[in-house]
């Protein structure tokens, strides 16, 4: 049987999605359901003086109106930060309470204060407009850079500072800088982004008064984790009385990791009113209340020798958490950011210092890449600047500082098991025709245009998070994954995974893996995810962990099936288990060449007993049935890496940046399905290029979101992109049996510095901030013209 791993198997989920048969949360309608509309704060910061629902209660069709008071009275818990971070001085991070419905204070535009539940959506909306809230408006803090100087947002949290965290050794860095021939320094902003999943968030909550069970259908990347948080911290219901189902989910990008206010409120309220409640976000609510991403202000320095050896690295960053610290809000700008900030280079001394601040803006949390795009942007912009200042070719300078051997003990935390960065660089250069660039630059100049080329070499830590590794760093939570492989008596297989697919094609790639492991045709394998009543506990999908963690759990569970199959075959064929081999779905006794198919073995496991023989095929100690579970906790992160090269052409008269060429050469380890990987790379690149050239979440000084719709928030479109030139190098991960590394975030990580390095190259080294909009670039072009004129 030919191996399916590595081939372009067509997506099993496409039939459903392309024929409109997907089943998303908003498609779910329950008998006698009601509709919820949330009353949200129009102010970025205010205290609630009075909340009057009398008029609204009289509005037609209203079933119930609940406020922060009721939720507090019922002792329903608030939203939480999942990772405790300690400051450099040893103190614990400071997190404010974040009630699902605000009672006393609101802290960003969109913060919910009440929920209106009515017989129809229209009636809920109408009544919501009649809820009267008397706010005392307070001065908002909105700027990341100045947050520490603003008014105190949360009582007792001085300077709006959640933590002041350090990774690395300041003294060693100082010594390294003292020895440097040159120090390259840079001030950069990592712009705030809005994830914009195609499907807005939604939930449908149901309560069964007889079983006292709440069922919550919700747009989640991790239903089990949601249930755990809602139960343990939200106090909504004990875990066995709470079922969370995340059906088809239309994109997450990190924005659907969190348990949100609406999930908790609807679940709690459904029980209170003893009816089902449906809530679907409008797009404007998504803009305001989905978690946002990035939002760093960074000063970084690189100490170098004359001939381009890196000696030391400093990274001083202010990270905006928004109004509250959410699930991955505190780990994203620390452990997902700091360790990766030294990039793919051997740098003897380094530190990253992060001050995480609260502001009156939407909470900031993990968004595709989570910390690693910010890290890569920092180091790769700095390295590119170093190449300009040292006059060393940008690719040569990088190669000079690449590790020469693997495992590569990276400066701060990680030990990178495998890779070949030089091979990646060489291949990318060839794919991009790096040598031919100067000729192309001249051609552009002849047309009155400016052309630039930019390079990024990146690595990232995927497969979060090996318990052993993160615990040693002081994080409380490790993240393993589970899988259960179940045979039916007649030989088909159902694989339950704790990962969740919301665009990642698990139904296909995971089935490819199981098909290879078990020798069962892929049509006979179903992948089930997204329902706490079906699978065992799982951690969900984010951080490019599904394959490198969840996929390996499937492999391990399959291996246990094969082990049992060997024992059963041995018993059935009267041989020693050690003499049974498994290949292509058949158990073969090597000595006699007698065999049983895996289907026959499954049948025997479920229906033990052979007529007339009066004996069981099950060996002593083995129970009937064929079902195995694995909980896989990886020994290390996995480390995809690669080099990307972009070329832009700028019209100096309009400031328009045209992305002419984009080359991505990535090492994702073994590739299960090249077609799916291309999709992941394309999507990541679109978001990464979007960050560099188009997307920006902007608040005004009063905390109003200026880019709250697609009229002002620039989502990139297909015509913004050239044909992507994609290639691979491959070194297998040595820390997992498949040799896989992860590919979901690479594009979003590598593209922003790649594109910006190209833009800045075209502009003769002038800094522009992301996104490089026409006006910013136009201004830089004018400056360039002036300085060129002066030079001449």
């Amino acid at each position, binding site marked *: 049987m030919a191996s399916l791993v590595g081939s372009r198997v067509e997506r099993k989920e496409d039939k459903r999605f392309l024929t409109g048969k997907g089943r998303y949360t908003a498609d779910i309608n329950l008998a006698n359901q009601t509709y919820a509309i949330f009353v949200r704060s129009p102010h970025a910061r205010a205290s609630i003086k009075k909340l009057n629902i009398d008029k609204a209660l009289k509005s037609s069709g209203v079933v119930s109106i609940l406020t922060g008071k009721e939720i507090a009275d019922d002792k329903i818990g608030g939203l939480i930060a999942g990772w405790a971070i300690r400051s450099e001085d040893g103190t614990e991070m400071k997190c404010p309470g974040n009630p699902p419905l605000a009672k006393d204070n609101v802290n960003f535009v969109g913060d919910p204060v009440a929920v209106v539940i009515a017989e129809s959506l229209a009636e809920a909306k109408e009544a919501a407009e009649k809820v009267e809230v008397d706010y005392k408006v307070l001065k908002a803090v909105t700027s990341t850079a100045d947050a520490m100087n603003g008014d105190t947002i949360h009582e007792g949290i001085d300077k709006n500072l959640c933590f002041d965290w350090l990774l690395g050794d300041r003294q060693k860095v100082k010594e390294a800088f003292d020895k440097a021939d040159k120090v390259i320094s840079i001030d950069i902003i990592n712009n705030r982004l809005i994830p914009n999943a195609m499907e807005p968030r939604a939930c449908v909550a149901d309560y069964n008064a007889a079983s006292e069970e709440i069922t919550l259908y919700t747009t989640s990347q991790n239903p089990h984790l949601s249930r755990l948080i809602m139960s343990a911290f939200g106090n909504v219901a004990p875990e066995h009385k709470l079922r969370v189902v995340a059906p088809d989910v239309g994109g997450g990008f990190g924005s659907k990791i969190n348990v949100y206010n609406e999930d908790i409120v609807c679940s709690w309220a459904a029980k209170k009113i003893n009816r089902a409640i449906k809530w679907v976000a409008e797009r*404007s609510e998504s803009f305001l209340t989905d978690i946002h991403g990035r939002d760093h202000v960074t000063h970084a320095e690189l100490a170098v020798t004359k001939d381009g050896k890196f000696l030391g690295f400093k990274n001083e960053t202010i990270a905006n958490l928004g109004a509250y610290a959410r699930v991955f809000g505190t780990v994203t700008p620390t452990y997902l950011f700091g360790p990766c900030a030294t990039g793919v280079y051997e740098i003897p001394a380094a530190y990253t210092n992060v001050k995480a601040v609260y502001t009156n803006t939407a909470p900031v949390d993990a968004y595709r890449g989570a910390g690693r795009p910010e890290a890569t942007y920092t180091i790769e912009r700095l390295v590119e600047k170093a190449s300009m200042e040292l006059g060393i070719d940008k690719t040569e300078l990088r190669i000079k500082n690449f590790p020469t051997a693997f495992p590569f003990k990276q400066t701060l935390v990680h030990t990178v098991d495998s890779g070949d960065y030089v091979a990646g660089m060489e291949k990318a250069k060839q794919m991009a025709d790096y040598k031919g660039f100067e000729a192309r630059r001249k051609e552009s100049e002849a047309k009155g245009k400016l052309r630039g080329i930019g390079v990024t070499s990146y690595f990232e830590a995927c497969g979060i998070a090996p318990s052993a590794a993160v615990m040693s760093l002081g994080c409380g939570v490790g993240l393993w994954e589970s899988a259960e492989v179940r045979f039916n008596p007649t030989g088909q297989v159902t694989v339950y995974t704790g990962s969740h697919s919301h665009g990642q094609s698990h139904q296909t790639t995971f089935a490819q893996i199981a098909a290879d492991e078990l020798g069962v045709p892929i049509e006979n394998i179903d992948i089930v995810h997204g329902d706490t009543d079906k699978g065992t506990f799982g951690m969900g999908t984010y951080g490019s962990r599904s394959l490198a963690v969840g996929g390996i759990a499937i492999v391990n569970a399959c291996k246990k099936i094969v082990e049992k199959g060997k024992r059963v075959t041995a018993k059935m064929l009267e041989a020693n288990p050690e003499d049974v081999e498994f290949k292509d779905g058949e158990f073969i006794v090597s000595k006699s060449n007698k065999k049983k198919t895996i289907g026959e073995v499954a049948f025997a496991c479920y229906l033990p007993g052979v007529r007339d023989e009066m004996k069981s095929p099950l060996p002593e100690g083995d129970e009937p049935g064929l079902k195995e579970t694995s909980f896989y906790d990886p020994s290390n992160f996995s480390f995809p890496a690669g080099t990307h090269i972009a070329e832009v052409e700028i019209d100096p*008269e*309009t400031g328009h940046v045209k992305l002419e060429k984009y080359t991505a050469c990535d090492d994702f380890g073994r590739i299960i399905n090249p077609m799916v990987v291309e999709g992941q790379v394309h999507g990541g690149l679109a978001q990464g290029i979007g960050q560099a050239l*188009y997307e920006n979440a*902007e608040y005004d000084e009063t905390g109003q979101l200026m880019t709250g719709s*697609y*009229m*002002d928030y620039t989502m990139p479109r297909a015509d913004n992109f050239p044909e992507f030139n994609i290639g691979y190098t491959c070194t297998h991960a040595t820390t997992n049996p498949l040799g896989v590394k992860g590919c979901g975030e690479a594009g979003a990580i590598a593209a922003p510095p790649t594109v910006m390095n190209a833009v800045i190259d075209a502009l003769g080294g002038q800094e522009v901030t992301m996104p490089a909009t*026409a*006006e910013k670039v136009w201004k830089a072009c004018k400056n360039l013209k002036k300085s060129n004129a002066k030079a001449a």
Partner: protein
Amino acid sequence: MKYFNYHSAKDSKEASKLASSSSAFLAGGMTTIPSMKLGLATYKDLIDIKNIKKLSGIKVSGKSVTIGAATKHVEVSNSKDVKKAIPSLSSLAEGIGDPQVRNRGTIGGSIANNDPSADYPSACIALNATIHTNERKIEAAKFFKGMFETALKKGELIEAIEFQIPEKSSYQKHPNPASRYAIVGVYVAKHKGDVNVAVTGAKSCVYNDKEMSKALLGNFSSSSIDGMDLDSSEMNSDMHASADFRASLVVTQAKKAVDAC
């Protein structure tokens, strides 16, 4: 829910009769419906005019192209007749919004709305259009009064827009990257003995840039307007473009348009 009455008018007369101070005509609905949904506008009556046959269609004569008010953008962009007579008009229509908007939005709705960054108003000015309503004919130069303001009276219905076919013309837009409305759009049209440089997006209302028109009438070449320093004091300024940037773009887009003529 905001309740309203829906009417489908069978002819202009009925449509106009149904109109009141709290009604709107419903053409493509691409402006009306989003503004109702966002609570920015409420109406008692919506008067659907899409079923009025007379309002749709394109007619080309020797001197002019006449487009019915309820003709959709996609029909203008696909029309072979328009492409032949005034190619720049067809490409303007092709550059409006996105396919969904072009499949619904209408030329009449666009000019009645007179959004300061809409595309069609510039075509009306540049191509010396005459706006035919159920009551009268209005010259484009007198039609666009100010931001979202036109010469239309209550209940007055645009029936058709008649464009004069120029010798040469081109429309060049620098789009808002998000919405793709014009940050600045410049429509240059050379008629016999006359040049119009209609500018949209730059100020509160579309206008004809007299200074550039004059320069181009003397010498129809981009060099005659190159480096012109426009007064930016009345130009729009928002997070997408400052007034200075817009002033510069007006000249740049005008030059591009002349070069493309």
